[in-house]
């Protein structure tokens, strides 16, 4: 008898709607299949540029997120104590009236009393603009604890970044180094690309203390010790320099390698690039092969100084003059504009400027730094955990692929000097790096070191190398600076976030103290381009620098996995003053689900799920572009909410109108925008530039710039909810200096001018801050902060250990108090590669702390979970409902602990009882676990005995929010990036190793 009920031709549903996934920030195109009004199936949109039809575990299970029992249903007003999770359901009118009252009072009093911080959203183009209209400087998203080190290092170095703003040339790269990447934002494209590379036989090297996921399929796994990548990358640079495997032509064309750096210790411009009176950088150029012994030419027009001499120059390092004689006579030079075409620039040597001072090409400073013994493979290998021969081999492999296996594409293009090139030469070596680099207190400099490695190989935006994704490249750094002042109408002069270029751009008061609640753009973290969400709660409770009235959070689980030192953060949220009032008077929170943070809010504004609202992935924000095309996308309501919830963006615009904010309410107080969809279509940031780039112009015929088009959203929906503008073929590579690209980018509104982007091998911006710390300029750091700023604002990247910051600061303070002179460069283990004098010796032996907490503890993202969101998903939690601590078997044996036992992981902060399992795929000095699987009982509508809290755990409890010195946040001294992965721990056995159960015991 046949299978009677075998239905082979059932339609998937009765309707299919395309939209954009939001189970993570990758933003793939999806098709939502509906049946009887319910979501029946979600699959990848095969026409979508991001995912080309594939869909990940999170995306497929979005259906269960959408129907999660933990969805919020109605606005909530707190009736119990904070943290008790006792609420009263209220109507939207009441909720909005209350919020309007709180915020209205603040705006009348002092807009900065609103701290508005957002988490994992992609609506910063809206939220940042809203903060600007409200007039608070206290706005940021979560980038400060996410990966601002990557963003800042990239933007200040080459006007782009890893993250999701660039990608390896998946089609052509022959060698990919993955530095500290477990998953990253470009979730599907990376997997897609890796699959392609493997099929092509390209080599993948995973540099990571842990081997899982991407590392599993890599050809080579380099188990580096956490926090030492800067040393490893430095040693690779050392080897490339030593063996002369550097793309000099690339350097002098596209970077500031040849720019002359003034050598005039003590002068106000020491270490800055020598410039003409128009501010154009200068370089030393060979006077011309055809004209031997020519005298240096007259100064370039506008130079005020006199010519410096007769064509002779001294050599560096000093004392080499005699040996120089072997090689022949010194070439004559002249000082010319560095960006001139057709010159023959010098990259080493010391040259006289027209004012008689000396200067050296930036490259020489870089080369001196990395050729030093500090970065010799033998000297870094112990600290990195990578054998010296391996380092040398990796360097040789990089050079081999970049130079001996170079590729040349027959694509004609025109450079920014108007010169035509028939082909594009490619260095098919690519790198990708993410939080393994970012989440350390040395991440900014480490990331810059990796970028330098790429640049020296000529491997940025060439065929086969790392590629920019439009709208990048921008100038390095991009021109927007953080707004500091308010206009008469109460709005800020610009966006609260940006890229400071000199001390004048900081948000500090006359005493040099921070102005922002998160201390971003202060002397503690001058380049904190994404803010420091991780510090907001503590500072707000401390009233440092000032008290705030309302903490307005959106989509950030600060009560749990987003918090550094979760237990302390949860206490702080409930802290009261002497009058019994909460120290943070009001907390408004928008979440879509019953997360841990909801429990701490006074007013909860329930958001819709991603299938119930309009959203916008704008080119003004974090677009969905890939290297081949600029692209943006929308999300649109696929089903109507079955609860009394509203899209947060609608609510935000509504609040803006109720508050009468400029551009949100008209003169009569009526809302300017009906809702977010209306805003997406009609709002213009600049003439013709709006949230969406596609189908602009009244007839929808314009791309990039054009008048608003009322049918725009309709057109998006007809086209899979995305818009794509392909980069012209001639603009495929060399975009930093490719006229074909830059003209297109300008027409799209991405860049203001079509000038070249000069990569900053030597980062002059950093030197400006260092000069201030040395007592120059209008805006200088307070005395106590000088040593720290001077040390970390090194224009050439360097490596320092995780104990460096603390010691540096402590002794700097002491030095400031006692008036001691700063000792000479310290050559102790942790600061060995420090270029500028370390302010002091450690006050306690470095070894002591290392001995008591000898292991590094880090986390990784599971591919199938997105932070906290996944545990409410009935399918995903069937994959992982608990996490364990993975430890190398040798390390386990040394404690001793048996595989599978319950034991303790302890840091100076306290200890956690966790289950331990052996994993030979990790460095023996590293322990790790999956991130954010552990949950707090009571949240996410999970049962009372859910493994997520009975057995699972969050490492965050053990991470201190302050750096060991307590003066600064536990993070990067340049950007403020949270140093999650600097955590040091030890393991302790438990007397009852077979009794399950997670516990937290913290030091008081």
């Amino acid at each position, binding site marked *: 008898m046949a299978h009677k009920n075998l239905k082979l031709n059932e339609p998937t549903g009765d309707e299919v709607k395309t939209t954009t996934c939001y189970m993570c920030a990758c933003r793939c195109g999806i098709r939502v299949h509906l049946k009887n009004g319910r979501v029946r199936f979600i699959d990848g949109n095969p026409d979508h540029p991001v995912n080309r039809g594939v869909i990940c575990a999170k995306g497929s299970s979005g259906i269960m997120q959408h129907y999660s029992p933990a969805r919020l249903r109605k606005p909530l007003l707190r009736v119990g104590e904070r943290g008790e999770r006792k609420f009263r359901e209220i109507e939207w009118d009441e909720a909005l009236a209350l919020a309007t009252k709180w915020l209205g009072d603040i705006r009348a009093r002092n807009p900065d009393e609103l701290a508005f911080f957002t988490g994992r959203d992609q609506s910063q183009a809206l939220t940042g603009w809203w903060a600007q209209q409200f007039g608070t400087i206290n706005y940021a998203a979560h980038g400060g604890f996410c990966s601002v080190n990557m963003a800042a290092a990239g933007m200040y170095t080459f006007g782009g970044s890893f993250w999701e703003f660039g990608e390896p040339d998946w089609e052509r790269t022959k060698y990919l180094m993955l530095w500290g990447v477990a998953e990253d934002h470009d979730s599907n494209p990376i997997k897609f690309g890796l699959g392609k590379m493997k099929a092509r036989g390209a080599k993948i090297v995973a540099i990571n203390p842990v081997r899982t996921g991407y590392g599993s399929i890599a050809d080579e796994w380099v188990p580096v010790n956490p926090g030492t990548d800067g040393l490893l990358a430095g040693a690779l640079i050392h080897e490339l320099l030593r063996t002369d495997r550097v793309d000099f032509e690339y350097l002098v064309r596209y970077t500031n390698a040849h720019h002359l750096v003034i050598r005039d210790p003590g002068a106000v411009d020491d270490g800055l690039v020598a410039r003409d009176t128009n501010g154009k950088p200068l370089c030393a150029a060979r006077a011309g092969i055809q004209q031997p012994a020519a005298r240096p030419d007259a100064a370039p027009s506008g130079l005020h100084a006199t010519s410096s001499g007769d064509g002779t120059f001294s050599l560096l390092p000093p004392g080499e003059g005699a040996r120089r004689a072997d090689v022949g006579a010194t070439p004559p030079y002249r000082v010319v504009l560095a960006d001139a075409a057709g010159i023959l620039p010098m990259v080493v040597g010391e040259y006289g400027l027209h004012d008689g001072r000396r200067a050296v090409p930036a490259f020489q400073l870089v080369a001196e730094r990395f050729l030093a013994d500090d970065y010799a493979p033998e000297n870094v290998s112990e600290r990195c955990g990578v054998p010296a021969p391996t380092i040398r081999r990796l360097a040789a492999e990089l050079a081999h692929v970049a130079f001996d296996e170079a590729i040349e594409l027959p694509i004609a293009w025109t450079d920014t000097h108007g010169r035509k090139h028939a082909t594009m030469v490619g260095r098919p070596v690519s790198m990708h790096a993410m939080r393994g680099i970012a989440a350390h207190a040395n991440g900014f400099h480490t990331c810059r070191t990796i970028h330098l490695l790429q640049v020296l190989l000529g491997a940025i935006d060439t065929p086969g190398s790392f590629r920019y994704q439009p709208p990048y490249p921008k100038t390095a750094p991009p021109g927007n600076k953080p707004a500091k002042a308010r206009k008469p109408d109460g709005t800020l002069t610009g966006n609260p976030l940006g890229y400071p270029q000199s001390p004048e751009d900081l948000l500090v008061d006359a005493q040099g103290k921070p102005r922002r609640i998160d201390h971003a753009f202060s002397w503690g973290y001058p380049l904190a381009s994404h803010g420091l969400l991780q510090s907001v709660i503590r500072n707000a409770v401390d009233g440092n620098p000032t008290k705030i009235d309302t903490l307005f959070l959106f989509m950030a689980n600060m009560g749990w996995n987003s918090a550094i030192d979760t237990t302390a953060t949860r206490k702080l949220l409930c802290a009261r003053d002497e009058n019994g009032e909460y120290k943070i008077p009001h907390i408004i929170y928008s979440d879509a689900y019953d997360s841990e943070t909801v429990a701490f809010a006074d007013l909860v504004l329930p958001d819709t799920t991603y299938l119930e609202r309009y959203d916008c992935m704008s080119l003004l924000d974090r677009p969905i572009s890939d290297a081949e095309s600029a692209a943006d996308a929308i999300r649109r309501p696929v089903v109507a909410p079955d609860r009394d919830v509203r899209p947060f963006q609608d609510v935000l615009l509504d609040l803006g109108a109720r508050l009468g904010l400029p551009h949100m309410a008209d003169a009569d107080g009526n809302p300017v925008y009906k809702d977010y969809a209306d805003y997406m279509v009609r709002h213009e940031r600049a003439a013709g530039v709006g949230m969406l780039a596609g189908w602009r112009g009244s007839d929808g015929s314009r791309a990039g710039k054009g008048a608003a088009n009322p049918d725009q959203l309709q057109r998006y929906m007809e086209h899979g909810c995305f818009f794509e503008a392909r980069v012209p073929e001639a603009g495929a590579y060399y975009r930093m200096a490719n006229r074909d690209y830059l003209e297109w980018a300008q027409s799209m509104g991405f860049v203001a001018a079509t000038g070249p982007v000069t990569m900053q091998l030597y980062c002059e911006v950093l030197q400006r801050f260092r000069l201030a710390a040395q007592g120059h300029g209008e805006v200088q750091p307070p005395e106590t902060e000088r040593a720290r700023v001077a040390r970390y604002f090194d224009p050439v990247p360097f490596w320092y250990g995780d104990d460096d910051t603390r010691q540096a600061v402590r002794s700097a303070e002491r030095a400031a108090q006692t008036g001691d002179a700063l000792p000479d460069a310290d050559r102790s283990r942790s600061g060995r590669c420090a270029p500028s004098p370390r302010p002091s010796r450690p006050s306690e032996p470095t070894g002591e702390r290392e001995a008591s907490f000898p292991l590094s503890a880090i986390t990784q993202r599971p591919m199938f979970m997105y932070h906290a969101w996944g545990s409410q998903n009935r399918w995903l939690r*069937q994959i*992982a409902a608990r996490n364990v601590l993975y430890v190398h078997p040798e390390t386990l044996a040394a404690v001793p602990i048996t595989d599978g036992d319950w034991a303790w992981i302890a840091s100076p902060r306290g200890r956690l009882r966790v*289950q331990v399992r052996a994993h030979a795929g990790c460095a023996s000095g590293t322990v790790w676990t999956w991130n954010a699987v552990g949950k707090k009982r009571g949240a996410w509508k999970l049962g009372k005995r859910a493994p997520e809290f009975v057995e699972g755990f969050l490492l965050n409890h053990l991470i201190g929010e302050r750096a060991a010195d307590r003066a600064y946040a536990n993070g990067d001294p340049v950007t403020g990036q949270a140093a999650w992965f600097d955590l040091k721990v030890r393991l302790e056995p438990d007397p009852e190793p077979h009794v*399950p159960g997670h516990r937290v015991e913290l030091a008081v």
Partner: protein
Amino acid sequence: MRPSLSVILFTVLAGAGYGLWWLLGAALAAGIYPFGGTGILVPLAFGFGLVTAGLLASTAHLGRPERAWRALSQWSSSWLSREGVASLVAYLPMLAVAWLAYAHRPGWPMRVAGGWLALCALLTLVCTANIYRSLKTIRAWRMPQVLPGYLVFATLSGGLWLWAWLALAAGNVIGLAFPLALLALAVAAAVIKSDYWRTIDRAPVSTAGHATGLGHLGRVRAFEGPSTEQTYLTREMAFVLARKHSARLRKGAVILFAMLPGIGIVLALPYRAGWIAPVLAISCLAGLFIERWLFFAEARHAVAAYFPPRQD
């Protein structure tokens, strides 16, 4: 394999029932059964009780017990189906014997019916044993001791109940041959089971390297399973029993199903203490219950090799 109560009850109880039936039937066929009428009906009914209780228990193992009848269709290939058919067919001679006994009709019809009953009961036992024996995936169940073992256990446990009835019906009179035969069976049961345990303890365990086909690359160790929590597969097939538990249980099982009955028989004979027989029969069932529990708990399914070792 996870020891499931319904399957243990089924094989232990129905096994005893069929054991009893086949001995009774054989005795009737051979014409050596000492009683007629009620003397037949009581043990027959007792066997009926055991068999039916066992069969009913077995349906509790089914996901869709209401469709159990469908299991009769595939007798041409499936041992489970054959067992189903045989178990039902066995009710026919049982009814025949019952009717003949009720009607007090000894002689050839009873001999034929008895033989038929013995044959069907034996066949059912063989089918049951073959359900397990035929599974290539569970090495322990493919051991040569499984079929004889199952027959011996069934005969012993059923036989003890028959002996109990005989002793009772004859007013505590016990013969010599039957208890001695049971004694021999008890010894055989102990020997077969010990031999079985020795064999499975020595059998190589399939490794992850083998299961994944990656063994040629080196040592393969399961790092993470597909789920951090238990699933049907891990509960059902990756059930592992700690060695120390198994040693204790094995001892207990042999004491209960073989040693106590054996010693009991030896002691009962000189003292003509037939009353002890039901105690011994219960002891044997209890022992077999543990034995059967172990039969599952100690059997490692091939699929277990894919999973990380259980931590709890």
